[in-house]
């Protein structure tokens, strides 16, 4: 029974998603608001709602299920405390984003909703898998559907290229997961996630390194962050789901889940913590320099996921989880508001959006709440969850970097807020009002962004979350720290709001630190050069050998033909000529003259007699 619940949870979005994704319906791109498109939206909403209910049920009942999949690697699913929190978050955000998308996406809807549902199923499988086989399966589906979603508007050049960059970059990290699977098989013989920390010596190090690479790639941490910038060419609902609650969050989730493995190696946890903290700092600076709202949000996503990765490395699991959940709500909200403005105003450049938050409160208010939460202003969610993470950081340098990153997040959130709340420079034309299906998710998410901080406040929900996660002993942030960070956040945010127009925007930071160019120079170009060299080798050596073989055979055949013509044929002809000559010679004694015949007979007789005498 409980197994069926879990299988249903995964298959319920997967099957209709696959059908919808394959059903198409926009082959000529003109099926705008067609009946099939509306049906697809309704079906997707119903499925997502049912999935959310199932996720809640699963979170309460904690089912587990196992099915044969590969020899030695069963497809085992289970819901524990961490999974319960994550699947509820993901399915809730997914439902809200899909609701928003019914109003926002108006072409290619069956494909869009199909891919979104497939993606949701993959994420649910990722969050519940307890073996590496299931994790790899879900991870692959997640990567493939993320490509389809980022490249959703494939009729122009940009999105497919962006999807390819995102796909290839995350795939490069994914290789690590395969390494980890190989190490698990070699070192322990089982794919179960909870046995990874117990692997024999070197295999454990390899598994940890592989998991780290895969998770950092998916979570858009340094040095993989640039794919998130390119992924912003996808539709806004895609960004709202993939880059808040689901795809990047799965990187953080994997590290939180495998924290025992990281800490068992002795170095991986530190690497994760430092990578997370440095990403939070560097990408915070990148976000501060952006001129495009979605790019700013993307950089801030990488930065906030940096906090989660830091938490996973530092062992602040409860804080990391709370931050993951709260960030999912905040960032989904902010991406959706960006999408709403993109739809109504046709731009996402910050200067062009000046004052966008003012006229329409139904979008502006949720955006303000989300941006303030992102800034870490109390009493909103990310303030408390961030402090919870900081409480778990022991190393002073690490703490300083993380604190700097927190200050930067207040800075970029304040910048966005300041620009969007300024009065516009000139009166705007009348704009389409957001539809109810767009407003409702924004309101719900704004509520979540405001109150999810309770997950990190010990008295309200923090202790309960720790009990659910099974880590009751983790340190909670002290009141003093919380007051200091709150004051810092308020001060920096106020400053950024006031100075929003004059904040520095260095080209290097605006360009995402040149990470993509570096990746192209350091990885893509050498790989392509190597591929070119190998192709040339193939052309000049392998191919030439292949081409030379028939030439040699033809030459050999020529020799053989000549030998046949000159040797065998000549021999045969020579035998014939010799025989003819012998025949002619045999005719010569036949002169017809009797005397000569007699003479020949006598000679023959004499020779016979001589022979007889000699042989006797």
């Amino acid at each position, binding site marked *: 029974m409980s197994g069926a619940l879990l299988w249903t949870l995964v298959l319920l979005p997967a099957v209709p998603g696959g059908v919808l994704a394959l059903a198409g319906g926009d082959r000529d791109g003109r099926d705008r608001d067609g009946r099939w498109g509306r049906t697809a939206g309704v079906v997707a909403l119903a499925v997502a709602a049912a999935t959310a209910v199932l996720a809640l049920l699963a979170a309460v009942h904690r089912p587990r299920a196992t099915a044969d999949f590969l020899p030695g690697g069963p497809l085992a699913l289970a819901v524990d405390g961490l999974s319960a929190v994550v699947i509820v978050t993901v399915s809730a955000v997914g439902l809200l984003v899909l609701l928003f998308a019914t109003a926002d996406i108006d072409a290619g809807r069956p494909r869009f909703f199909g891919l979104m549902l497939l993606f949701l199923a993959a994420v649910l499988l990722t969050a519940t898998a307890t073996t590496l086989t299931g994790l790899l399966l879900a991870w692959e589906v997640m990567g493939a559907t993320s490509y389809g979603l980022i490249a959703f508007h494939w009729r122009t050049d940009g999105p497919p290229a962006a999807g390819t960059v995102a796909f290839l970059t995350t795939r490069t990290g994914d290789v690590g997961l395969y390494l980890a699977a190989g190490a698990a098989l070699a070192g322990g013989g089982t794919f179960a996630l909870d046995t990874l920390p117990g692997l024999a010596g070197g295999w454990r190090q390899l598994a940890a390194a592989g998991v780290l690479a895969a998770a950092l790639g998916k979570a858009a941490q340094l040095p993989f962050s640039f794919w998130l910038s390119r992924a912003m060419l996808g539709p806004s609902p895609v960004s709202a789901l993939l880059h808040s609650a689901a795809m990047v969050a799965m990187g953080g989730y994997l590290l939180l889940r495998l924290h025992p493995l990281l800490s068992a190696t002795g170095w991986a946890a530190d690497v994760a913590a430092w990578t997370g903290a440095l990403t939070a700092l560097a990408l915070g600076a990148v976000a501060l320099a952006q001129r495009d709202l979605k790019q700013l949000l993307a950089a801030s996503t990488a930065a906030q996921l940096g906090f989660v990765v830091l938490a996973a490395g530092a062992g602040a699991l409860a804080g990391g989880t709370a931050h993951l959940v709260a960030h999912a709500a905040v960032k989904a909200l902010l991406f959706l508001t960006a999408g709403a403005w993109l739809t109504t105003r046709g731009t996402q450049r910050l200067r062009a959006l000046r004052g966008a938050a003012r006229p329409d409160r139904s979008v502006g208010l949720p955006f303000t709440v989300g941006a303030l939460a992102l800034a870490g202003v109390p009493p909103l969610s990310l303030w408390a969850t961030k402090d919870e993470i900081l409480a778990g950081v022991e190393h002073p340098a690490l703490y300083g970097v993380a604190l700097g990153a927190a200050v930067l997040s207040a800075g970029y959130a304040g910048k966005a807020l300041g620009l969007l709340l300024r009065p516009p420079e000139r009166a705007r034309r009348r704009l389409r009002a957001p539809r109810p299906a767009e407003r409702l998710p924004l309101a719900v998410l704004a509520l979540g962004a405001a109150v999810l901080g309770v997950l990190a406040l010990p008295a309200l929900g923090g202790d309960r979350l720790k009990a659910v996660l099974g880590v009751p002993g983790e340190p909670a942030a002290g009141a003093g720290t919380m007051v200091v960070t709150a004051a810092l956040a308020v001060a920096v945010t106020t400053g950024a709001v006031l100075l929003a127009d004059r904040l520095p925007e260095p080209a290097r930071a605006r360009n995402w630190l040149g990470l993509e160019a570096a990746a192209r120079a350091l990885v893509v170009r050498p790989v392509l050069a190597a591929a070119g060299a190998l192709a040339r080798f193939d052309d000049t050596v392998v191919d030439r050998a292949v081409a030379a073989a028939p030439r040699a055979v033809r030459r050999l055949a020529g020799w053989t033909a000549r030998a046949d013509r000159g040797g065998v044929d000549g021999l045969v002809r020579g035998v014939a000529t010799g025989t003819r000559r012998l025949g002619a010679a045999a*005719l010569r004694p*036949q*002169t*017809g*003259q*009797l*005397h000569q015949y007699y*003479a020949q007979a*006598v000679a023959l007789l004499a020779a016979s007699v001589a022979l007889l005498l000699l042989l006797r």
Partner: protein
Amino acid sequence: MTPDLFLLLAAALFAVGLYGALSQQSVVMIMMGLELMINGVIVAAASFWYFVAPAQPDGQVLVLVVISAMTVEMAMGFAVVTLLFRAKDADTTDMAAELRR
């Protein structure tokens, strides 16, 4: 009486016959040479029989076979010569080369 004299006679007859067969132009003369050679053979065979195994009749039979073969040969030879002379007016071997090729 020794066989040597008879063998000598046979050899002389054979040699004279051979010389005649090789040296004469006329067909009739050549046939005379052949006769002499066969006579040499007959003398040799008869003397061998007489001196070596007079009790056996084999030698006599051999001599009789040779004589009959010689008779047939002469009859055939003169018939051929007569026909040749009638057809081509030829009486020397140089004029008749039908056996050529």
